[in-house]
C-alpha cells in the first residue's frame, strides 16, 4: 500500500509579462529558492528526486529540464519531465505524489517544479500542435490545414472557453456583468499577492465591460494574461514532514480524468457531448478525489478552493461541477460575497489563473496556493482557519481535469 504524502513547502517566482532580467533556468531557481526558504532545515542534499514540467514546445528549446538541472540542484538525482498541455502543473503535482507514495528505497522527498517563460518561446507555434483540437480531427478526416482558418476563426483556448460561456450563460441566465464581477474579485485579490501578474486594486465592473470583445461573450478585460513564472512544491512522507515544518499539508486524494474533447466539433473522444458546459470529466475527477479523501459533503467540508479558470465563466462553471455549489447558483454566491476573502468559501484568493497565467506552472500554483492557505503562509491569507482545500487544473485539447484534495490531517485509509 502507498505511503501518506505531505506537502511541506511551496514557492513562486515573481510573475510578469516579460521577465527579461532572468532566463528560463534562473526563473526556476527563483521558485526553488523561495520554496526552500520556507523550510530552513531542508537543503538540496535532502531532496531525493525531481519532477519537472512545462507546456511542450512553448519554451522554444529542447529538453529544458537538462539545461536547468544545476539551477534546481538535480545533479546526479532521478529527474522526470511530464507534459500534458495546460494541466502540466497538475500532472507534475500528481507525479510528485506518486513518486513519494510509491515507496521506492531512498526516495522520500521530491521537488515538483513547473515553469513557463512565454515571452521567450513562440506560443502560437506551441498552440498549433497542442491546443487546436481540430488538428487531430483534420488529420483524421484528411482535410488540409488551410480549412482551419475558414472553420475555426475562434481558435485556441478562448475558442474553447467562449463556447462554454455561451452555453453556461444560457443555462444559468446570467449577463456579462456577472462575468465581470468574477474578474473584479480576482484582480482585487491579485493586488494583495506578491507574485501575481495583473494587480488592479481599483478595477470596477464598468471598466471591464468597457473593453472590446475578443470572442463573444468574452471581452479583453476578462481574459487571463500571458505570464512568465515558475512554481515549486516540496512533497515528502508523513514522518519526515513533521520534522520539516509546523503544519504539514497532507495530500489525501488525487485524480485526473479527461472525458470529452474540448472543442466538441468533431467529437474527439467519442463521448457524444453537445453541451460544452456539461464537463463530465470535472465531475468524475472530483468524485474520485473526494472519495479517496473521505469527503462526502464537499459543500460543507471544503474550506478553500483554487480552481483553474483563465476565463470568468469557467470559474463559475468549475465551482459548480466540482460540487462546491448547486448548479446555476454560483453567480449569486459571487454577488453575495460568499466566495470573497472573508466569505464562507473563499475561492482563488491568489487572483487565480485569471490574473496570472504562466501556462505550464498555473495548474501547479493552484494546489501550491491551497497548501499555503492551510499552512497559514499564503500571501493573501484568508482570515478563517482552513482545514481542507482543493487544487484543480484544466487543460489540453481533451478537457483533462486534475484534482488534489489536501487537509491538515492525514487520511488513515492506507493503515
Amino acid at each position, binding site marked *: 500500500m502507498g505511503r501518506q504524502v505531505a506537502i511541506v513547502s511551496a514557492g513562486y517566482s515573481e510573475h510578469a509579462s516579460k521577465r527579461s532580467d532572468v*532566463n528560463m533556468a534562473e526563473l526556476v531557481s*527563483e521558485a526553488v*529558492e523561495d520554496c526552500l526558504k520556507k523550510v530552513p532545515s531542508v537543503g538540496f542534499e535532502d531532496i531525493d528526486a525531481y519532477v519537472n514540467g512545462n507546456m511542450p514546445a512553448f519554451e*522554444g528549446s529542447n529538453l529544458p529540464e537538462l539545461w536547468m538541472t544545476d539551477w534546481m540542484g538535480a545533479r546526479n538525482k532521478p529527474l522526470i519531465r511530464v507534459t500534458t498541455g495546460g494541466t502540466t502543473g497538475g500532472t507534475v503535482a500528481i507525479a510528485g505524489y506518486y513518486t513519494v507514495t510509491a515507496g521506492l528505497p531512498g526516495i522520500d522527498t521530491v521537488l515538483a517544479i513547473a515553469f513557463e517563460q512565454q515571452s521567450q518561446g513562440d506560443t502560437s507555434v506551441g498552440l498549433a500542435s497542442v491546443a487546436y483540437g481540430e488538428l487531430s480531427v483534420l488529420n483524421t478526416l484528411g482535410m488540409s490545414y488551410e480549412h482551419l482558418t475558414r472553420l475555426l476563426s475562434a481558435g485556441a483556448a478562448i475558442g474553447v472557453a467562449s463556447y462554454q460561456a455561451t452555453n453556461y450563460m444560457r443555462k444559468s441566465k446570467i449577463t456579462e456583468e456577472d462575468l465581470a464581477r468574477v474578474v473584479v474579485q480576482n484582480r482585487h485579490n491579485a493586488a494583495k499577492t506578491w507574485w501575481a501578474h495583473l494587480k488592479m486594486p481599483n478595477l470596477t465592473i464598468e471598466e471591464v465591460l468597457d473593453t472590446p*470583445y475578443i470572442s463573444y461573450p468574452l471581452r479583453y478585460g476578462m481574459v487571463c494574461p500571458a505570464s512568465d513564472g515558475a512554481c515549486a512544491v516540496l512533497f515528502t512522507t508523513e514522518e519526515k514532514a513533521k520534522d520539516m515544518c509546523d503544519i504539514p499539508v497532507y495530500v489525501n486524494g488525487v485524480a485526473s480524468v479527461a472525458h470529452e474533447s474540448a472543442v466538441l466539433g468533431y467529437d474527439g473522444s*467519442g*463521448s457524444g457531448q453537445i453541451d460544452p458546459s456539461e464537463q463530465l470529466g470535472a465531475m468524475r475527477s472530483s468524485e474520485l478525489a473526494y472519495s479517496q479523501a473521505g469527503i462526502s459533503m464537499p459543500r460543507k467540508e471544503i474550506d478553500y478552493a483554487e480552481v483553474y479558470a483563465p476565463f470568468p465563466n469557467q470559474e463559475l462553471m468549475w465551482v459548480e461541477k466540482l460540487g462546491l455549489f448547486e448548479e446555476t447558483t454560483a453567480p449569486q454566491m459571487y454577488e453575495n460575497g460568499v466566495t470573497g476573502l472573508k466569505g464562507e468559501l473563499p475561492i482563488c484568493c491568489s487572483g487565480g489563473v485569471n490574473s496570472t497565467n504562466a501556462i505550464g506552472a498555473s495548474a501547479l500554483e493552484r494546489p501550491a496556493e491551497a497548501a499555503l492557505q492551510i499552512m497559514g503562509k499564503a500571501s493573501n491569507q484568508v482570515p478563517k482557519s482552513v482545514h481542507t482545500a482543493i487544487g484543480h487544473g484544466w487543460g489540453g485539447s481533451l478537457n483533462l481535469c486534475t484534482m488534489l484534495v489536501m487537509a491538515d490531517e492525514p487520511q488513515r485509509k492506507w493503515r
Partner: protein
Amino acid sequence: MSKLTQRKSLEYVKKDYVRTRTMPASWYLASYKYKYNLTHMQPFLEKLKNKKLIGLQCSGCNRVFFPPRLVCGKCLVKPDRWVDLRETGKVATYTVAYLKDTETGEILERPVVLVQQDGADTASMAQLSPEIDFKDTYIGMPIKVHWVENPTGGLMDIEYYDLVEDDAKDLDLRKE
C-alpha cells in the same frame, strides 16, 4: 541540522547582470505529412458528392456519428450502420469571432457555430450564412445546409448553413 551556508542566494548574480541578452532564433515546425484512414469515410465522402448526408450508427448504443468515426468511444466497437440524415439541423452552441481584415483594417464579426444535424448525436463545426446577423444567433436556432456549386467529396462541400424560416411558437421559448 541547518544547512543555510550551503545554499547561495541568487541576489549576487542579479547585482552584476541587470538584463539578460536576447538572441533571436527560429524553430521550423510548420511542415509535416500525415496519413489518415479512408476505410470508414469512403461511403460518406461519396454521398457528399451527390449532396446527400449520411451518419454512422453504433450498433451498441445506437448513437449516430456525424462525421463518421472509426470506433465508438463508449462501446469500443466499430459502428457499421449507415443512416440517412436530413439537411436541417440546429445550433448546438456558438461564439462570435472578431477578425481584423489585413487589407482594410476593418474588424469583421463572424459567428462560428457548432451544428447538431437532425438525426445525429454529435455536433460539427460550421459557418452560418453571411446574411444572418450575428446578433440574432441563439442556441437551438433551426438551420439548413447550403451546398457549394461543385461538390468535390469532402466536408468542405457544406459551404454554410441557412436559416430556416419557421414561426412555430416553441422556438420563441428556446430564445429565452
